[in-house]
């Protein structure tokens, strides 16, 4: 996983991380998430896929839908929460 600070510096990934930190139960499509964070859908999709590679976001894939959710990895969640507290 990249440096959390680095991810938060990029506006959209920061917004997505903040959103999932506030709404960890959420599972939504890229379109839905872009609506919640007020971002462009295509850029949101790209950033979500990057965050999936980083292991911060989990993608549930089916033939017709890709849905994204927050990781269940305790360590990653702790790191993000720690960073947000110190922000």
């Amino acid at each position, binding site marked *: 996983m990249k440096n959390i600070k680095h991810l938060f510096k990029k506006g959209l990934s920061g917004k997505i991380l903040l959103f999932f930190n506030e*709404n*960890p*139960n*959420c*599972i*939504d*499509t890229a379109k*839905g998430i872009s609506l*919640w964070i007020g971002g462009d859908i295509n850029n949101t999709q790209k950033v979500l896929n990057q965050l999936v590679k980083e292991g911060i976001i*989990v993608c*549930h894939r*089916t*033939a*017709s*839908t890709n*849905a994204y*959710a*927050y990781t*269940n990895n*305790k360590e990653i*969640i702790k790191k993000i929460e720690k960073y947000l507290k110190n922000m």
Partner: protein
Amino acid sequence: MKESEKKEKQAFLIKFPKSSSVSAFRAFCSKILKKNRCAFLDAEYAPVKFKCRREKCNHLKLGKYLAKIKAGPLREYMIFKCSCDKICLSLPIMQGSSVYGYVLFTHLDKEPGKAIVDSVRICMDLALREFQKEQELTKLYETIRPRAIALSTIHTIHRLLSSTLNMDELIERIARLTLQVMRSRHCSIMLLDESKRYLVPKAVIDLDKEIPKTGLQYKKIKLGAKLEGGVAKTYKTVFSHNSICVPLVEEDVIGVISARDKTNGAPFDKFELEILITLAEQAVIAIKNAQMYEEQEKMAYGSIKTLAALLDSKSPNTFTHSDQFVKIVLAISEEMKLPREDIVNLHYSALLPDTGKFSIPEEIFKKPGCLSSKEYAIIKKQHIESLKIIEHMGFLKHAMPIIKHHHERYDGAGYPDGLKGAEIPVGARIMAVANAFEAMVSARPYKGKKISVSQAIKEIKKNKGSQFDPEAVDAFIEVTKKPKFKNMLGVSA
């Protein structure tokens, strides 16, 4: 004053001075009252947030001074001089008839006239109204937004669950989504067995185990026993700080779903209980659909087998092929990673491959050696005619083209339509390979001498790209390399 009322007023006085509406009010007052300081006191004249180091005047004492002037809430403005002989103006902050606190302007140059005080009052009323609106919006945002996000989550889960009718895939998906949405470390789904006396674990995921496992390695539970059995028996949800177990109920209970241990170690709350109950309702619908689909599939297979048996009673081994043929067809399709629906249709086709021979005169299709052009024309015509037997079986709609075209050749020299390459349905291309292989290695009376498996494979390879689809041949070759291939044949290759 009641404790709750006091708390509400305190919360109001903490938020109000920080609000954007107060910034505008302060700006206005600093212009109209000129050189002044603005402070907020609560209903008991204690300063909410105010520091004045420059002046000797201690505004905490100022509050006490005010209290001495008049005990009880001041509902009107007041102009007075504080202990350091400076002019002060206090205005009550009121909502309805209730006094929430006071705004205090200190160190005024001169005593403000009534018109100025009235302007300040009007401006404060506006700021209060603006603040109330802000508060209402914040409240709406705080209550409606999480609900909207939860609703969207439920909708997404519905989409994810309704995209499969494969029971194993569905159950695992439900478990993973439950784990995700409940933020739990453990999730299990148990379904009642046919006797309705035992709960059988269908998916168990435990993130704290090194390799998360889904499967049946966990023991079944008797109805009424343990937590899950109790929930299934009583139809009642069990909710504790670290676990939730919800029955899966359609008309009767069909199983239970449970989540345990939250990732952050916090207890489960009522909101999460509500989410799991909603998810369970959706899971029941999806499971029921998958079960119905499985039943339908079984009925379809049953009908096809009945039809095959009927056709076979006319001429054994003419319209159907051996089990090994079906197995090879399915193995090739899996090797080629065809979608599940295509594999099901191919399976139907493989069970009834030669329905097209039904009205072909027996002496023609059992004739050894080459056919005359007249005989070949009869075969082409009758092949299509014969397929009318199955055209009314709706579930064979997608299998029909496979059955119809599996005698086509990749180079276009086959029948009935002389299709070539990708024009031939992929299932038909696979069946062509398996059909030829089976014909070569089996000892059918009208096929002449059978040849060995290795010779047959060689022959198939030789016709790759001409008679057969190269991709299907490659997949077939891969299948022949696997140990299960020998089991498929029931002989040593």
